[in-house]
């Protein structure tokens, strides 16, 4: 038997590579975002906002390419699962870029004054780095179709959720002064955006599991925490 439908396979591979390239763009954007938070760098924050157009363009390009393959090639089996998963993944990638923009937009709001509580900034930077590690892991899990790495993202994301809770506690203790409270509220919005980006990596892990096993299941369920990790009997 000979290999056939070479052009179709090449196009599918190209679209997957484009989507994986989207992870790299997110990592770049996240890195700049963390730096901008750490050093209250408004210019760098603007750079993050401007660069998001590239990620949006990547989303549109991959999405259109996948729709064309669905319309013209009648993909089935693993190819179909890969395309269905890529449609989710590229959306998650685009959303992670948006969360970086959400954080970047907050930086001019907190201004050039020294942070009211440096510990809160430090926590947010740690969250950002942890999310970055998860984006890298999600990328590797996807490209290697590695179920173990994909499932491990839930455990990794617990760290982000814990840091988010710590941020919340610190924000509560910020005191009564209105300007300090405003600063703390703004920083909580940044923490929330990063926490959502962490969730996006878990969603990508679920899509990896779908490609590998053919079954979709949520790794974690907020409304039924007792079901997390292990499905009910």
């Amino acid at each position: 038997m000979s290999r056939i439908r070479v052009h179709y396979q090449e196009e599918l591979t190209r679209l997957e590579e484009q989507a994986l390239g989207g992870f790299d763009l997110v990592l770049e954007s996240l890195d700049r975002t963390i730096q901008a938070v750490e050093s209250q760098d408004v210019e760098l924050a603007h750079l993050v906002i401007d660069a998001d157009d590239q990620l949006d363009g990547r989303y549109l390009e991959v999405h259109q390419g996948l729709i064309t393959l669905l319309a013209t090639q009648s993909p089935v089996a693993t190819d179909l699962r890969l395309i269905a998963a890529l449609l989710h993944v590229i959306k998650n990638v685009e959303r992670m870029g948006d969360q970086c923009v959400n954080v970047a937009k907050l930086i001019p709001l907190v201004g050039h004054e020294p942070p009211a509580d440096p510990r809160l900034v430090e926590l947010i930077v740690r969250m950002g780095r942890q999310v970055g590690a998860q984006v890298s892991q999600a990328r590797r899990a996807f490209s290697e179709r590695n179920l173990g790495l994909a499932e491990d993202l839930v455990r990794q994301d617990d760290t982000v959720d814990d840091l988010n809770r710590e941020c919340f506690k610190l924000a509560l203790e910020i005191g009564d002064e209105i300007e300090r409270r405003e600063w703390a509220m703004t920083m909580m919005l940044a923490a929330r955006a990063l926490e959502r980006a962490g969730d996006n990596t878990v969603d990508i892990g679920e899509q990896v599991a779908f490609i590998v096993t053919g079954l979709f299941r949520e790794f974690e369920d907020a409304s039924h925490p007792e079901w997390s990790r292990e499905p009910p009997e």
Partner: protein
Amino acid sequence: MEDGGGRGLAQRIEVAEPGADVSWTGEKVFELRDVGVTYSGTQAVKGVSADFFSKEITALIGPSGCGKSTLLRCLNRMNDLIPGAEVEGELRYHGEDLYGPKVDPVQVRKLIGMVFQKPNPFPKSIFDNVAFGPRVLGLDNVEDRVRTALEGAALWGEVSRRLDDNAYGMSGGQQQRLCIARALAVNPDVILMDEPCSALDPISTGKIEDLMLDLKEDYSIVIVTHNMQQAARVSDRTAFLIVELDADEENRWGRMVEYDVTEKIFTNPSDQRTEDYVTGKVG
């Protein structure tokens, strides 16, 4: 109150594997156990075991030479007409041995009709084509049977005013539906279809596919098709056959490698060979 994150839907949605809810214990039309076919001693199909179910469409797919048409012809003893053809193994039709000594092949072909790749109407009027079977079998109410069969084949509206016209004047798609009507006119139980749409345009193909879905309310259908999307669109279960070679690659025969609910075959097949074939990676 900030909850520190967490994701999820309002409730856990359990999704079963595609086809996991489909029964394998329903009424069986055909039970094949280690069925093989040889032509003058040369093996054409080997070791096929599967159950085909009542009021379902079962599709046989696979590359050229995999024996899917040969296997289809076993189901109404059409292979009896080919000199040197022999069927091995056990083939039961509603629990009875289809190749038993008391079985009349003519009666078998009345109950198990066949529609071929190329429409093959007789050079007669539309009416006479459909009436042929009932007349040969001496059935009564021929006119009613012709009308019912043409209605069943979704053709009555198009031909009711020109039943005396020669069937050769019909379009290819109409001729194929006429052949289906001819099969229906003798009240069959099963309709076998061997590439019924390969000579038809997409519109006629769509009509035949719609018709098949209507017909499975009353009949069991087994279809051989090269068009995998057709199998995906119409069939309930799909069997995938391959060409197998012996060690020195001199002899080749067809073998069934996977048989499952169609949705499973086309979303998550179990066998890598099925995966490679349906995704078009090998041919």
